[in-house]
């Protein structure tokens, strides 16, 4: 099997999307970061304005993951149209270290609700010191409030094993509930 799977990382600004793809990619990642000019510069120097791109080869002969990262701000929501075709699933990152973690998640869910309802989705709590049961519960509540159902898990977005595990969760979701044109193959 030498399939190509296209997954997208989403989430509020600063949730770790660019860092994740840069840490995981087997090729030099493509980045479209620019210096911030708004209040975001208090917490980070740069922000993605188009997309991040990287590739991760799965162990053995199990194919490749094409990793796309979208900008966190809702004003860039049209970028989803660029990655939509053949999309295998989405990972929404939540920054556990941010006071606005749930607000950030809620904005992402609000912006992309219709798209996220039609593909396998995992919410991944990133930058967490340990188990985040309370935050996980609040993430589930946010999902519920937006009419979405998805597993919520804790991960270190810089660790390859964690991302591969999330991919396996997406694969399971696909096998047991989703059926869409992008199933198992990027275009």
């Amino acid at each position: 099997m030498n399939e190509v799977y296209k997954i997208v990382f989403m989430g509020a600004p600063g949730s770790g999307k660019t860092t994740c793809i840069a840490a995981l990619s087997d090729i030099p990642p493509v980045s479209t970061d620019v210096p911030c000019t708004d209040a975001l510069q208090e917490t980070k120097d740069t922000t993605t304005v188009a997309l991040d791109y990287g590739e991760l080869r799965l162990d053995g002969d199990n194919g490749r993951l094409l990793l796309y990262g979208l900008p966190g701000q809702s004003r860039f929501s049209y970028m989803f149209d660029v990655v939509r075709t053949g999309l295998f699933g989405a990972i929404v990152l939540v920054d556990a270290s941010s006071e606005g973690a749930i607000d950030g998640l809620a904005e992402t869910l609000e912006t992309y609700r219709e798209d996220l309802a039609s593909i396998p989705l995992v919410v991944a709590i990133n930058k967490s010191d340990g188990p985040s049961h309370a935050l996980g519960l609040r993430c589930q509540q946010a999902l519920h409030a937006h009419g979405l159902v998805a597993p919520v898990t804790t991960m270190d977005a810089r660790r390859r094993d964690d991302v591969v595990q999330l991919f396996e969760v997406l694969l399971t979701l696909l096998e047991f509930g989703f059926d869409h044109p992008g199933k198992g193959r990027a275009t």
Partner: protein
Amino acid sequence: MSIVLPSQPHCHRALDTLLHRCDGVVAAMFALRDGRSYAERFRSTLPVNKFAAMSSSLVALSNSVLREIASDALNYLLIEGDAHKLVLCKVAGSKSPLILSIMAKHEINLGLVLGLAKMCAKEVMEAEPTESARATQTV
């Protein structure tokens, strides 16, 4: 970190001049590099926020393509449709975080639009920065 910007009235004057020089220009905007409008002049109603964000994405993506494929840097981005032309360029030569986006009718000569873009960007580039403040306070 503070960013230095030309004043918004100065940018508006430059855009007014640009539109005055060519009736075929339907929209002109100075957008911040991270996708927010700083100054704009439209002859008709356009989605300001989307235009600014898309300008930022297009320039960033074009930069990435040139950097990855040819180790080059972007000067201009030209997009031609059935009814319109779109020219985007960075306001370079300083630490300016501005992008100039111009939309013109299709029948307008591309060289003219490019020339207008150059003049407009130069005019703003050469302006003494009258504001040295955080962009968040001015936008």
